[in-house]
């Protein structure tokens, strides 16, 4: 049997260190947001041989004294970011100019977003995350009939979200990864991964409790340890099927879809980790706290 309660201070410390490292990067170097959030113009295209310096001269007149960011990959694919959101005519003109000066020009992707639209998107994302957490809190509360379970489940969810954001802070610094709508989607999906295994464990705890009517804290520790040990293998097996599917996706796709599958992949792993090592142990700590208060 795994004594998950005994080792909980090790896992708590591990999590805190990971969170700290992630946040060190996020607060010191910031996270790059995609054009969808910041507003502006981004164009991605292919060409036969693309030279960065030439592009700079072509694009500068359109940028109107704002900082252009140009990334060229293998002389074949270029991404140009202009902080200003161009209007329709300017976009047409820029495309025409690029077509004329870049041999083999093929447009891949063009996005123009007004700054206020981006701000709205940030608001909506935060609302979506908050709403998900509230609804799930209420659902777990109703389903398991105690607020301890739902609090522990939510803390584990937040733990996963915070770590994932931290990891993307590191990716952002090292690889220049942008946080876009897909990554946000992955963060929201992570909420459900995180919950899946937690519910399986809590369901097991519920069943054992029903059987033995565990009251004191010693029994609770045993109950949780038994429940976690019982479902540990199936939790991991559950996640492995998702990990296999996502891993083979990540192996073949590129661009933002790659980062999306990486985010989902990390999400599955975090969700599997946090259910026994965070949700169950936090559940224990809250119960312990409540019991010690009762005694007083």
């Amino acid at each position, binding site marked *: 049997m795994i004594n998950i309660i005994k080792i909980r201070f090790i896992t708590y410390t591990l999590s805190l260190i990971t969170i700290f490292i992630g946040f060190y990067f996020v607060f010191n170097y910031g996270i790059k947001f995609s054009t969808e959030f910041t507003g502006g113009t981004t164009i991605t295209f292919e060409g036969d041989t693309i030279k960065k310096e030439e592009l700079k001269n072509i694009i500068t007149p359109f940028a109107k004294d704002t900082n252009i960011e140009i990334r060229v990959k293998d002389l074949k694919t270029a991404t140009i970011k202009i902080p200003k959101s161009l209007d*329709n005519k300017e976009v047409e003109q820029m495309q025409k100019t690029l077509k004329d000066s870049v041999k083999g020009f093929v447009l891949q992707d063009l996005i123009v977003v007004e700054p206020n*639209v981006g701000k709205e998107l940030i608001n*909506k994302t935060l609302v979506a995350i908050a709403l998900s957490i509230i609804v799930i809190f209420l659902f777990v509360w109703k389903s398991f009939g105690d607020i301890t379970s739902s609090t522990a489940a939510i803390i584990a969810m937040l733990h996963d979200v915070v770590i994932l954001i931290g990891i993307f802070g590191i990716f952002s610094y090292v690889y220049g990864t942008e946080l876009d709508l897909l990554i946000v*989607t992955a963060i929201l999906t992570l909420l459900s991964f995180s919950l899946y295994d937690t519910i399986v464990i809590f369901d097991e705890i519920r069943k054992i409790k029903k059987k033995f009517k565990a009251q004191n804290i010693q029994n609770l520790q045993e109950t949780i340890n038994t429940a976690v040990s019982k479902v540990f293998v199936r939790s991991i097996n559950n996640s492995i*099927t*998702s*990990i296999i599917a996502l891993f083979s*996706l990540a192996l073949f796709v590129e661009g933002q879809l790659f980062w*999306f599958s990486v985010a*989902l992949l990390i999400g599955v792993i975090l969700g599997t980790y946090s259910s026994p090592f965070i949700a169950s142990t936090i559940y224990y700590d809250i119960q312990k706290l409540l019991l010690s208060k009762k005694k007083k």
Partner: protein
Amino acid sequence: MDSLINHIKNFWLFVFVIVISIVLNLPKIDINKQIGPYKINYIGGYEINFNNGKFYRDMSLKKGLDIAGGVRVVLEPDLSNLPPVEHKEALNSLKRILEIRVNKFGINEPNISVINFKNNYKVYVEIPGVKDVDRALSLVGQTAKLSFKIEKEPPKELKEGQIYIPQFEETNLTSSDVSKAVPDFYVDQTGKREPSIKLVFTPEGAKKFAKITRENIGRRLAIYLDNQILIAPVINTEIPTGDAYITGQFTIEQVKDMAIQINSGALPVPVKVVSQTRVGPSVGSKAIKQSVLGGIIGILLVILFMLLNYPKLFHLSVINLVVYGLITITVYKLLPVTLTLPGVAGLILSIGMAEDSNILIFEKINDEIKNGLSKKEALEKGFKGAWSSIRDANIASLIIAFILFNPFEWGFLLNSGPVRGFAVTLGLGIIISLYTSVFLIRSIFKYFYKIKL
């Protein structure tokens, strides 16, 4: 167990669903048979065609913007000139007119939604598969309000050095007096053919037009589109027939687009393009190949994993996966679900999740066998024991998919195409996998192992 299961316990319902799914995914098979009052022409071929096309349904998979290429435009309607009570009606007709325009442009399945965020309205228009993006943009972005103005009385005498510029004033002739606009060729006196738009007036409009032309011979009648003058010919005689040609230096394409705009009606309010995304078709097709390859390898590995871990129950998980895939594709085609790249990711992820419930059930069954129960008892107890966690865990996932998909288009939630594309495949994946991995497996237990469940 839950009453829901009792409703879907029939094994034969699954057989029916599977047969329908196979038929709908078959290539074209000619039938040409009369069945009762209905004639079935053929089945499969990725479409349904009953009764000589009276019931017709295209069954090809719809490809989204990021796969087929195309454009996504966000329009901001200017409602400042309308009283708030008329906003809703104006937005509805705006959406309707945009739909007509995009449909007439010849692209299938545009996706248009109106979002309200703190009374700040936005209209999202997604047009997959469109090649000439600039043309599509001007088609949706223009109000296309026709107006007819007549030249004011010219001054009797011009001062020295003064050039005469005609001044125009409104007439009572409006857009609603035009019954339709037809792209046409106008042949002038020299026999030169020129692309033009023929305006056909309603009977009421024709009367107004005749009156205006009768009373203003010798003056100019100007036709405006969105306050831009298109043409201002001098009226030579009264025109009682009610047809008017608009000529200019137009290309055939411009004439066609203008006719679409005029026929679909002017937008009730002016709109401004606040965001646009253009995607070239080459990216999508490459990415879809990569994702499909990743998906296939993923499925094979998942099957291998199941074989290694649950060799005795392995066949059930293969049946589950196959039926799951079949039903999923059919549901995508029937709804239809527009497939986007995040959607494909959601689909692949849901393959992993489809096995989750199986694993929970199999593990419980193994537990019960270890506890010394007979195989039959273990199947029964294991199945019942796994259900409560499967139910709660899947409901939680559905809640998230629901919030991401935002089916009621709540303005305070996300409404972006990629997010929705992912949410819809994930949500459907959860529901369908529950159906196959729980109810199908249960039916098989009941039917082949004669177990009471």
